[in-house]
């Protein structure tokens, strides 16, 4: 039969010769290999103390963005929920009251905004769909939890810290790539 790729290797099915039958040379060869490995550099990253560098395009936990004045950017248009292939996003819209102009950037805002992190596949399509730059996938890994219900992230979990009141937290949550 013709080989499909060039990487085909014929298996040697000749009976073992004397040196192969007494196993010892092969065993010694194997033992030198394992011995050499003892002195190799270990690729381990000591996790809680050190973290691995994430690439700038890493798609981690979502954040709901604010503008420079600290107002929520999301206008509850629902485009992210439509774009989401995993149907992980739910929201409820509400109308901004006159005295809430310092809280919400647009006249319509998301009163409830939830992402089910167990459904989310971290594809980043919500980020692409958003016309208001309101949702981003940050470089934070979604933490583990014990209960399923804790994986439904609400606005409390998602909203980024206020850049006016907490510029440090804001910068940290935003990550380095934005």
């Amino acid at each position: 039969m013709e080989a499909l790729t060039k990487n085909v290797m014929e298996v040697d099915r000749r009976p073992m010769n004397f040196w192969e039958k007494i196993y010892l040379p092969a065993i010694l060869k194997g033992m030198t290999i394992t011995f050499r490995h003892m002195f190799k550099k270990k690729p381990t990253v000591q996790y809680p103390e050190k973290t691995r560098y994430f690439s700038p395009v890493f798609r981690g936990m979502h954040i709901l963005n604010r503008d420079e004045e600290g107002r929520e950017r999301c206008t509850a248009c629902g485009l992210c929920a439509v774009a989401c292939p995993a149907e992980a996003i739910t929201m409820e819209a509400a109308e901004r009251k006159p005295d809430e102009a310092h809280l919400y950037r647009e006249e319509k805002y998301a009163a409830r905004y939830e992402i089910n992190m167990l459904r989310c596949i971290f594809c980043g399509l919500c980020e692409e769909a958003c016309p208001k730059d309101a949702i981003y996938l940050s470089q934070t890994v979604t933490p583990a939890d014990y209960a399923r219900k804790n994986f439904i992230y609400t606005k409390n979990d998602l909203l980024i810290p206020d850049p006016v009141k907490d510029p440090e937290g804001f910068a940290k949550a935003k990550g380095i790539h934005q």
Partner: protein
Amino acid sequence: MMFLLTIDWAFFLEKLILIAIVITLSLVIAMYATYAERKIAAFMQDRIGPNRAGPFGILQPLADGMKLFFKEEIIPNHSNRFLFIMGPALAMLTAMMTCAVIPWGNKVELFGRSIPLQIADINIGILYIFAVVSLGVYGIMIGGWASNNKFSLLAAMRGASQVISYELAMGISLIALLMLTGSLSLKTIVEQQMQAGHFWNIAYQPLGFLIFFICAMAECNRAPFDLPEAENELNMGYHQEYSSMKLGFYLFAEYINMFISSAVIVTLFFGGYDMPFVNETLLTPNMAALVGVIAFFAKIFIFIFIFMWIRWTLPRFRYDQLMNLGWKGLILLALANMLITAAIILYRM
């Protein structure tokens, strides 16, 4: 008559203390052998290994032991309770019993007494070790049988047949050695190797050593001979149904066995407590004993390392390969080795 009835209390005490020390030492060494095993395995696989419990993870064995103590103790209700408990107990007992005849060092002088660092210097030391080690397989067999589980039973059968096939080759390879030494007492064997102008027995019996070493590995149920506990086909084998400290005993017995096997190999083939290039007779007895004990343990640790090194290099033998190697390879080799040794001894006489 009065003389016969007086017990030498000092002698009694001295032996008791020695037994306590040796048992504690074997337990501690076995404990840290588990740590060493994990570290060596990790390093050979480009990992770091346990490093969280204490500096460099040296408290890991304690944590493991604690964990086993606190595990729920499960005894399957279709198993024979008595035998089920006896299995691990026997495994541990036989593993510990072998320490009795190993000469750990020369005499020390303490309180005007000359104390040999050996619990019992019996003139059939090797036979005793053989007898006890072959009892060790009962731990596996009884455990496997009492579990009332087909995998455990298969493992027990494998263990038994493996030990029988390899004990034969081991015995024959030893006969060649005994023809050279002319004594079954381990102490005498070590003293012979320590004499000036006499090399360690490995120089006279390299093939015998190789056979003995391979068989010792098989007796310890270490990889590549760990067929009784083959994880992927027998699902942990004979200790599948065990939990808590009974499981711990089985795992622990393996490490003690490894320690004792190394000690026996060193005693028989590598000069026991003989420190190379040092003439012990020039030192004070206590110094000589100290040097001897250190040399002995250094050699043992090297062998434990080699045991582990082999385990993390080689895959497990297939069952037919195991039997072929034992019956068609090692026994014939051992017989040839014995005959050649005998011929040479006869020729030199």
